[in-house]
């Protein structure tokens, strides 16, 4: 099982949904291209994001952060700051009630809210609430802190050296290396006709969502309301209650809109707790949003990884051995830096060994980042596959087609409910014009074209628990009540489409209530591409139940057997005699009850089988052999995410995934100063996310739907993360095809290319 570290602790299983819902065949709404139901609100500015919240008497807060990579607080003096105009409260480790273990849900908390041992730049030292944000920030400057600076480590190698500075009791290893083995690697390698071996690295990436992280906290007596920019109100709910030691029933977390997270907003931040503490001592609502600079160091990253890959294959391309050894650093506090999963599962291979090592360093803590670990793995594994294909004289698509598994070898050899991997390879290659492209003659000029492919899978496809409530009112309008956040992916829209599909109610008549722990039901945070496959089936089940109740009422009134009736638009019609019908609004039982309520739950995943999305990406690039400039000129993404729910937002997810993949491949890299351990590019122009000019106009999405009737009641497997896993590797393979140079370290900049061209020249 993939490590789902955003889901800590026990996950409650829910019961099977009562009705057995048959798989959809032809659909009227689901799968169509439907613009977002909240699109107007989002673009017009009427959508209220947490950052927009303004409450009467609200104070503004800011956090004083450690300017050093590793230090201890020796002394802290807030007396001058306290006297400054507008300052209402200052919190430090010494403040009553501020000594809160962090993270409260773990058995062994490794730190506390204001830990006096500061393990990376940005660690929290104090916080101020004032009448205005400027006053709060001025006050931060007036707090005098005496630090004892400590030696620091920034890389895995440094952290594991004898005598290295230690971040946590028990040493710098987060855990012993996680090793996985099947078969006999040595034997596999000795059976191979060709072996390729190489070490790859990926740079650390920052999430950079549009909306910065933060919360507004407001107390009413002993009840706390939090507006949070979060991917999961229930995750925040639980942590807030535990940290503040108050009943969950007293906490309400609201997250109607949020401006992106990409994994960095899956858990409760310290800032939320700090806002709540400041609100408590001041008896005023408190707004605490981080600055853009703070989000670069303190809200997570895709950890940097180093991966050594060894592949062995027979002459005909049959894989005989895969070795994948990964190290990484999740930063200063426990956070996964695992990458190996996909390498052990994507291709049929009897002899496999992998290991993942994770080490503490004095840098910002990693958080799950869109398909955590998988794009890194693809960067290494899929480049190795490319090299292997060249070694064998085989086409890279053919080599992959030769090694398609029907089962998840990593997960007990259980069969997949469906696998579109082969179809993604074939249909993607066709849409891309792969054979023609690879057969072309190289131009003589300095700008060389290249074509690359990379395959992928994603290790999760949703599951229980999720509870959705659908209410049908007597006028035929519907209320859809769900716990899930819409993190920009179009959740509200596709969930409405599912309800519309079952009930025949037009989208305009569906109102949504969501992401509010006070009024909606539990679901896991929107991460792991789970919202479609987890919450979608629950929505269908809820609508199904409403429909069942409605048909039962109608059957009584129409004096027909219920099996004979179907819901068609706003009418109930007999399947035997279409003249026998009854308008929904005319159902007396509905009028009497005023509302029909359906409660839908997500049932368990199919027993003994594995649900997995797959994807294959194709890239075309141009490389200037003189300057090392690389342009991505064309991308094709063939995705098996099962049935698309909303084809418009499905494509949008893929385009967004491709852009992020371009970021990993071409532009993004956290840079830490080796002299001080501080991040030097913690801003939006030195940390380079791709711009419109770095993204090709020519991008195509091929939706491969294997018609999965077993995965869940919607046939959908999740698209958000599978859309970004293979991109960077496909681009790197295209670069290798263009100029014959293998770029093992991301990102592929003119800086990197120049170095590689130099090395090539030296070798001659």
């Amino acid at each position, binding site marked *: 099982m993939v490590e789902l570290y955003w889901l800590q602790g026990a996950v409650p299983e829910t019961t099977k949904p009562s009705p057995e819902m048959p798989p959809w065949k032809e659909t009227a709404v689901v799968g169509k291209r439907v613009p977002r139901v909240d699109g107007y609100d989002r673009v017009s500015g009427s959508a209220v994001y947490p950052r927009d919240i303004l409450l009467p008497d609200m104070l503004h807060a800011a956090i004083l952060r450690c300017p050093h990579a590793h230090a201890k607080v020796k002394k802290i003096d807030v007396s001058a700051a306290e006297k400054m105009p507008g300052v209402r409260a200052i919190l430090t480790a010494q403040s009553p009630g501020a000594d809160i273990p962090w993270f409260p849900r773990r058995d062994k908390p490794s730190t506390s809210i204001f830990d006096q041992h500061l393990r990376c730049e940005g660690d929290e030292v104090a916080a101020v609430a004032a009448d205005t944000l400027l006053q709060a920030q001025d006050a931060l400057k007036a707090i005098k802190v005496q630090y004892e600076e400590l030696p620091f480590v920034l890389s895995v190698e440094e952290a594991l050296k004898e005598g290295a500075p230690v971040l946590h009791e028990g040493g710098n290893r987060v855990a012993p290396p996680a090793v996985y083995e099947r078969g006999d690697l040595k034997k596999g390698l000795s059976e191979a006709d060709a072996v390729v071996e190489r070490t790859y690295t990926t740079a650390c990436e920052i999430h950079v969502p549009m909306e910065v992280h933060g919360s507004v906290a407001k107390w009413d007596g002993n009840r706390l309301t939090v507006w949070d920019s979060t991917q999961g109100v229930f995750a925040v709910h639980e942590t807030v209650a535990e940290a503040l030691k108050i009943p969950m029933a007293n906490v309400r977390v609201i997250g109607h809109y949020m401006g992106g997270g990409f994994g960095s907003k899956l858990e409760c931040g310290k800032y939320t707790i700090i806002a709540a503490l400041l609100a408590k001592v001041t008896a005023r609502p408190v707004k605490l949003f981080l600055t853009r600079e703070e989000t670069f160091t303190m809200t997570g990253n895709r950890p940097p990884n180093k991966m050594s890959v060894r592949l062995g294959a027979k002459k005909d391309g049959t894989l005989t051995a895969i070795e994948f050894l990964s190290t990484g650093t999740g930063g200063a506090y426990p956070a996964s830096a695992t990458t190996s999963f996909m390498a052990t599962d994507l291709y049929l291979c009897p002899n496999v060994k992998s290991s993942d090592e994770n080490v503490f360093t004095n840098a910002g803590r990693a958080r799950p980042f869109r398909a955590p670990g998988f794009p890194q793995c693809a960067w290494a594994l899929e480049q190795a596959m490319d090299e292997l294909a060249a070694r064998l004289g085989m086409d890279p698509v053919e080599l992959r087609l030769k090694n398609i598994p029907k089962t998840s070898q990593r997960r007990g050899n259980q069969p997949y409910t469906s696998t579109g991997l082969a179809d993604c390879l074939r249909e993607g290659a066709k849409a891309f014009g792969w054979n023609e492209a690879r057969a072309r003659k190289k131009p003589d000029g300095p700008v060389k074209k290249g074509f690359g492919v990379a395959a992928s899978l994603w290790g999760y496809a949703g599951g229980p628990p999720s509870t959705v409530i659908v209410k049908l009112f007597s006028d035929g309008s519907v209320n859809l009540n769900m716990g899930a956040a819409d993190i920009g992916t179009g959740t509200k829209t596709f969930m409405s489409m599912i309800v519309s599909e079952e009930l025949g109610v037009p989208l305009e008549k569906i109102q949504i209530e969501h992401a509010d722990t006070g009024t909606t039901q539990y679901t896991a945070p929107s991460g792991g591409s789970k919202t479609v496959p987890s919450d979608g089936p629950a929505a269908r089940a809820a609508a199904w139940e409403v429909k069942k109740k409605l048909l039962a009422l109608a059957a009584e009134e129409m004096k027909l057997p219920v099996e004979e009736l179907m819901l068609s638009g706003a009418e109930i019609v007999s399947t035997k005699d279409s003249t026998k019908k009854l308008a929904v609004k005319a159902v007396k039982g509905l009028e009497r009850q005023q509302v029909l309520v359906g409660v839908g739950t997500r049932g368990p995943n199919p027993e003994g089988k594995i649900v997995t999305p797959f994807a294959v990406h194709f890239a075309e690039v141009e490389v200037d052999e*003189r300057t090392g400039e690389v342009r991505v000129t064309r991308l094709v993404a063939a995705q098996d995410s099962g049935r698309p729910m909303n084809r418009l937002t499905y494509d949008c997810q893929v385009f967004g995934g491709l852009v992020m993949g371009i970021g990993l491949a071409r532009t993004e890299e956290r840079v830490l100063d*080796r*002299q001080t351990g501080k991040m*030097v590019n913690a801003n939006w122009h030195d940390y380079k996310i791709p711009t419109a000019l*770095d993204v090709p106009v020519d991008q195509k999405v091929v939706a491969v739907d294997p018609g999965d009737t077993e995965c869940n009641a919607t046939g959908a497997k999740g698209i958000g993360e599978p859309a970004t896993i293979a991109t960077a590797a496909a681009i790197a393979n295209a670069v290798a095809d263009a100029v014959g140079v293998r770029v093992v370290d991301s990102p592929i900049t003119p800086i990197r290319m120049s170095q590689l061209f130099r090395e090539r020249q030296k070798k001659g």
Partner: protein
Amino acid sequence: MLPNFAYVRPSTLVDAVKELAKPGAAAHAGGTDLIGCLRDGVFDTKSVVSLTALKELHGVSATPDGGLRIGALTTLAEIARHPEIAKLYPALAQGAASAASPQLRNQGTLGGNICQRPRCWYFRGDFDCARKNGEFCYAENGENRYHAIFGGETCHIVHPSDTAPALVALEAVATVAGPNGKRKVPLGKFFVLPAVDHKRENVLAKGEILTEVVLPKAPEGARGGYRKMRVRGVWDFALAGLAYSVVVKGGKVERARLVLSGVAPIPWRVAEAEKVLTGKALDAATVKAAVEAAVAGAKPLAENAYKIDLVRAVVEEVLTAIPK
């Protein structure tokens, strides 16, 4: 966050100079660079003096001797789309068009682009570096991939401007107004190397304002342009670039001006390469000699030797493309 400061908007040049001569005053044109510096705490200011009401600083007009006068407040966007500039001074038009992003070009001015502070991440960040009040240059032994390969010494910044190299190549002359009246400074002498003074980037004294830039008449048959290399397609400073103006007559180079961006603390004119070209046919051997001359004397730091390759590449690319 922004510090506290007073804001003044004088309506005459004399008043503006007076305001700027006061301690802690800073000129504000488009503000795209200044406000960022203040917000990041790069330097402090007591008063921000807006130049926007000064009529003398606006407008583009022909000069009597066939050149062009560009007011310091002309925006980069205006320069990029000005038909005359595009035709006669393509290096400048392309320089302006390749700077920053569309929003910034709409707001940022030519004067501000020339006078903007360096983008070195140590200078801009929370580091007490030599260009601020510190003792040493952090880039020397630090993260120096974007830093200078020429003229660094006590501070290894690169000059950030994409228009300045073109202005140097075009032999533009700046008009500067100050407490002692006006003076003219050729752009080639406007910028200051760290060896001279590593706390400033140009010759402007306290209270001085750059009011305009005057371009001499474009030489007959000149070929010019600006070629910029960067990590991403837009919203990115140059890794290296080349502004050039070359006149070829009768199969021989009559005059060549080659000025590099992104490689030195000032726009870096490669006079040796110009010399190599002058009087020669633009054949492969000449181009090769010019390429070598352009990189001669480069002193790369640990992470920026690639800039030598970029300079070689861009000089070769540009010269090869000029019709012989």
